[in-house]
């Protein structure tokens, strides 16, 4: 294996999961998300000279994935509406919490599916991918203040969608 191929493999191993999830949230199709993630890695690799090595890598890669996915949507001239049949990442609790938490997991996943792309994206980055505020700001190309205000609105929307779906706080308290 050449040095380039080895470097590419390492990048995919470290950031592949995040890149794939980001693509899946936008494209909502597993096969296309895999394809888009592959192409984004190649684009990133070709443009490595533009990457500032002082900064974290993932936010930069996220921008590439995001722009690439938006380009793909434009090319197929398809605007996904919220009622479309969609594939989104399914979030679950660990096996030790499995029985009591099913209702909450269903509520979270259903609520996530009803959110706008903007809210879903920032929640995935913060809650499930654990990016810091500066990293989210860089990934989404928005100021840090906007990250906080968008997170605030997204969390409110998530909570209200969960409650609207019939979930109550007691559902999750039974598992604590």
């Amino acid at each position: 294996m050449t040095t380039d191929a080895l470097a590419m493999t390492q990048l995919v191993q470290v950031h592949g999961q995040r890149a794939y999830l980001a693509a899946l949230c936008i494209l909502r199709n597993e096969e296309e998300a895999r394809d888009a993630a592959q192409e984004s890695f190649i684009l990133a690799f070709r443009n490595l000279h533009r990457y500032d090595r002082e900064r974290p890598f993932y936010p930069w890669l996220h921008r590439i994935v995001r722009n690439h996915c938006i380009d793909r949507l434009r090319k197929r001239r398809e605007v996904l509406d919220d009622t479309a049949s969609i594939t989104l990442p399914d979030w679950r609790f660990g096996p030790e919490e499995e029985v009591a938490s099913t209702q909450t997991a269903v509520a979270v996943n259903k609520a996530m599916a009803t959110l706008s792309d903007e809210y879903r994206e920032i929640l995935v980055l913060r809650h499930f991918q654990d990016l810091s505020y500066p990293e989210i700001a860089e990934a989404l190309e928005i100021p840090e203040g906007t990250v906080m205000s968008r997170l605030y609105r997204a969390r409110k929307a998530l909570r209200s969608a969960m409650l609207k779906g019939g979930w109550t706080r007691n559902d999750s308290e039974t598992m604590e």
Partner: protein
Amino acid sequence: MSSTCDQAKEWMMRVIDHQASAEHRQALDTHLQSCQSCAAEFADFRHTKDVTDRMRSSMEFDAILDAIESGVLARVQRSLAWLLSGAGLMLIVCWSLVDVLLDESVPMAIRIGISMLGTGSLLFIIETVRWRRRTAPHDPYRSVIR
């Protein structure tokens, strides 16, 4: 809603996400003691965060990562193969053309024709590359099927 409530939204997010300074935490505590609606909202946010913190994606990422990795490597190899084949073809064509042009046994008309064809092709390639570099990144109509 007071302006402190507006500020409290930011403090709440910072505290929930463990990105708050001691001053932010102190300011939020002080505000929550005097504002019941913000206190209730903060409890809700914290609860939602606790729930999602314990959740993980149910996908089997090993297979997906393998597929991405092998796909990326295959694409890199394909583009390298295209590059090498293209360069090799260009080298052979150019070498043969120069050979023919310098061969005095070939009629002059054919040699002039080959020179014109070669120059025309070169200009065509240069202009196409220049056009793509100039317009492609900014072309607002590039998604339109022509």
